[in-house]
């Protein structure tokens, strides 16, 4: 243990602790900006400078490990002056159109300015006469260099969490900026649209491309029937933007709010998540038969899940030779979209051209996914608008709804039923668990051999999880799987996906089925979720997801009555011709830079 004093208070912490963490232990607040709990230390914004008695220079609290006998002061005149200067400097290269900015009142620089730099501006405005780019090319987000303060959180996120480095630091000195390969627009680089950078940007330099106004326009258009679907992970995070602590389940309130906002029908992506399990589970079993029994060389194992559009774009860029391993199933969002303008329209006797399909997602990549040319199976754009959890919170506030006093209500019918299996799609390992619950039962006629259906080995925050389940007592149709030990793996965060993919590339991955989610923690940690995020926040959301599952009456996808109905009335059986037309897709190879 290392002993030191901070502001004349004694503290003892393990070696390697930073001065910042030691101060936090004493409940001494040191402002930070480039620091983020998910990322490696940068120490470049210098907002957290503190004074060590006797030292020539100040030190960055976030980047300095404690040493024995340190005498740190966090609030001396020297420190205050330096912090004020630093915040003023940052403001001088930041285009402060705060009142118009999407991040107004959610901006970390603005908060620091409030604290340290109110009153007269000291320095010259460097934004004017300095060329900058506002890149709106991405379907998912806008990159506005004039608001960038070069903290490099985005760069570290893209490299460290996602192993992509679509953005990196370019140039030096006054020309330094965060840029892409050859300064290409974000739509033309390896960016997966995951939005993890957006989630960590302290200012308005990276924000999701919002379509709030378009959704309002549709809602107020009397000719349009606007349906909305909500992804599993939204219900456990939306509350954070509306005054609740992380991990609060607000499903019922959210449904009421959506109705009050004015959506004509409030439906659930969980429905199509259950449908995904039926399609994907059947596809897996078919693949296993073709590969293991028929010896079909064209059938690729392991099969990868295809729910996460960030992951899809990652594999399209980085491992295109394994596109055939991807499940052909569309993501739940897109399955829902294709059915909204076909099955739902038919059932409700609506003209599909008059239906506007909106989805609320924890994700920015979903915006890109909805724009993919493959996603027009209904004859129309299957999903018209995708809004993030954050955008929904904005809409609820715009509508003047007091979220806390809302009475919970139920989703509408036809495509509103769901099971616990669908809810857990929102957490890493959830798709795997849902698939196993159904596939095991299809094959053996019995429930998965785990207490209370909780397949705990696939749960949790480990970056790569492995599990195996021995299939015994198969029904006659599935005898070829008797005694097979089904090996599965789960990765979340693309840096972990890359670990599995490099094993696959080397031929050293023994798996049959692999679940990958692009974002840390799965969708609960998605790029469109409330800011901030951290391991602790993601864990709270994850707990909420599993508790939502436990509170459901139905917990297996194949028991979803709406799903049973759609197969009976419309699709026939899983992987049928019609299902293939509407619910399956294909992928494209993309550049690796």
């Amino acid at each position: 243990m290392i002993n030191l004093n901070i502001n004349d208070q004694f503290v003892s912490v393990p070696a390697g602790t930073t001065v910042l963490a030691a101060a936090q232990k004493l409940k001494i607040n040191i402002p930070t900006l480039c620091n983020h709990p998910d990322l490696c230390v940068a120490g470049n914004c210098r907002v957290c400078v503190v004074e060590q008695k006797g030292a020539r220079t100040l030190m960055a609290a976030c980047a300095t490990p404690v040493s024995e006998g340190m005498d740190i002061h966090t609030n001396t005149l020297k420190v205050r002056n330096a912090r004020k200067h630093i915040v003023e400097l940052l403001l001088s290269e930041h285009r402060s159109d705060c009142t118009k900015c999407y991040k107004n009142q959610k901006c970390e620089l603005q908060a620091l300015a409030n604290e340290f730099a109110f009153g007269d501006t000291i320095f010259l405005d460097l934004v004017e006469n300095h060329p900058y780019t506002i890149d709106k090319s991405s379907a998912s987000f806008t990159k506005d260099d004039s608001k960038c303060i070069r903290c490099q959180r985005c760069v570290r996120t893209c490299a460290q969490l996602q192993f992509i480095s679509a953005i990196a630091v370019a140039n030096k000195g006054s020309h330094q900026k965060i840029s892409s390969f050859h300064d290409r627009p974000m739509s033309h680089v390896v960016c997966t649209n995951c939005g993890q950078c957006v989630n960590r940007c302290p200012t308005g330099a990276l924000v999701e491309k919002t379509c709030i106004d378009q959704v309002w326009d549709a809602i107020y258009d009397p000719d349009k029937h606007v349906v909305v679907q909500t992804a599993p992970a939204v219900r456990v995070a939306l509350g954070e933007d509306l005054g609740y602590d992380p991990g609060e389940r607000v499903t019922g309130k959210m449904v009421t709010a959506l109705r009050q906002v004015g959506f004509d029908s409030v439906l659930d992506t969980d429905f199509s998540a259950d449908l995904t399990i039926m399609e994907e589970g059947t596809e897996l079993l078919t693949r296993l038969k073709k590969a293991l029994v028929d010896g079909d060389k064209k059938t690729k194992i392991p099969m990868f899940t295809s729910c996460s559009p960030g992951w899809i774009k990652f594999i399209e860029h980085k491992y295109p030779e394994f596109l055939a391993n991807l499940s052909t199933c569309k993501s739940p969002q897109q399955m829902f979209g294709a059915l909204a303008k076909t099955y739902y329209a038919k059932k409700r006797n609506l003209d599909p051209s008059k239906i506007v399909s909106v989805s609320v997602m924890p994700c920015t990549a979903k915006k890109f996914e909805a724009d993919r040319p493959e996603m027009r199976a209904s004859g129309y754009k299957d999903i018209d608008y995708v809004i993030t959890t954050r955008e929904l919170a904005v809409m609820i506030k715009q509508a003047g709804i007091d979220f806390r006093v809302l009475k919970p209500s139920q989703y509408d019918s036809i495509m509103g039923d769901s099971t616990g299996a669908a809810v857990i799609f929102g957490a890493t390992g959830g798709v795997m668990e849902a698939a196993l619950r159904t596939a095991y039962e299809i094959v053996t006629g019995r429930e998965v051999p785990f207490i209370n259906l909780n397949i705990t080995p696939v749960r949790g925050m480990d970056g790569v999880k492995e599990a195996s389940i021995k299939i015994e007592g198969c029904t006659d149709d599935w005898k070829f799987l008797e005694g097979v030990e089904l090996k599965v793996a789960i990765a979340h965060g693309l840096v972990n996906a890359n670990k599995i993919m490099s094993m696959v590339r080397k031929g050293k991955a023994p798996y049959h089925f692999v679940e990958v989610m692009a974002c840390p923690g799965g969708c609960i940690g998605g790029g469109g979720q409330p800011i901030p995020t951290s391991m602790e926040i993601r864990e709270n959301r994850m707990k909420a997801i599993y508790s939502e599952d436990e509170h459901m009456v139905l917990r297996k996808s194949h028991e979803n009555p709406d799903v049973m109905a759609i197969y009976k009335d419309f699709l026939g059986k899983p992987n049928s011709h019609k299902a293939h037309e509407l619910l399956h897709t294909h992928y494209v190879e993309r550049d690796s830079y």
Partner: protein
Amino acid sequence: MKNKGLSKVDLIFEKVNPKEVLVKAFKMTNEEIIQQVLESGLKGRGGAGFPTGLKWKYTAAEKDPEKYIVCNADEGEPGTFKDREILDRVSYKMYGGMAIAGKAIGAKQGVVYLRGEYKFLLPQLMKELATFHKIIDEIGYNFRVRYCLGSGAYICGEESALFESIQGDRGEPRNKPPYPTSSGLFYKPTSINNVETLVTVMMIIQHGAEVYNQLGTKDSRGSKVFSVSGDTPTPGIFELELGMTVQNFVTEFGDGDTKAVQVGGASGFCVPRKKFTDTIIGFEGVPTGGSMKLFNSSRSMYNVLHNYLDFFAEESCGQCTPCRIGCQQLLKGVEKVKKGEVKSTYLNELVKLADTMKIASKCGLGQSVGNAFKTIVENFREEIIY
């Protein structure tokens, strides 16, 4: 303090038999070598002036079997060109110094990080290197030196940015601690020394610490190679004993009309005429990596300052706030003052900013921008304003 006056020395470029010196060094224990260097009082010749013996001692104390000796030949300080001359004439002494350092700290590998613009020296340097490798093999010590070329960034002369550059990453300074002695090149214990420092080590081993110790002052032992430029009838490379005043220097090299000397390049200090006699060139006064630029009364100190700030605004790595934006603010600020677009008192705000940069920047670059700025603004304020 007694003024030593100016005396020219010829030790750095003195011809020696490298093998003889190395054989002598390799008969010593590692502790003896480090002790010799410590006793010599040698401080790093790149400009920062960290005691070389101490650096070696720390690196030697590290347990890691993989260590590096890195020679910083990224001579980029404006007005410095002494390493180029040393590399051109006595590179074998630098190799020798690296081998001695390597032995002392326990490094089997040496890397010379050569300024990109000095690529033309490489054929000759490689020829000398082959000879050196032969000598070191004859002595029976397992040690190899390789080259890495810079790409033109001033910041890569900063030790940790230099490591990043060798590693193939963007040349940006690291957070310290950890220091290179425990985590340097490839995050291994590393001693990084300037070309001249390593050459000086050869000379210390050859003549002994006590001989070297007789030169210079208590705080600035030995002699040093100076790069003399600007308004002088005799520009060039001169090896001088440390401890002289700026006045001694100007008497020797000035053109009779010297109004200021910039000691230590763009990151160094501007000494005005009125302070020539009280300012010692060395660690007790104004330290220098070798750059000595003389300005006569025909020069506008505004232009000098503008030139330096322009340089820093360009050459800051851009990573940390005080340096990236601070340099731009200082530059734009003096421009506005000059044009009369802001009040001349704005200079006071800029001086405060320079103070912040000095204590809050991440590395030596940002921390030293204020040196030239403050000394020029304080001494030539009227030239900045009018």
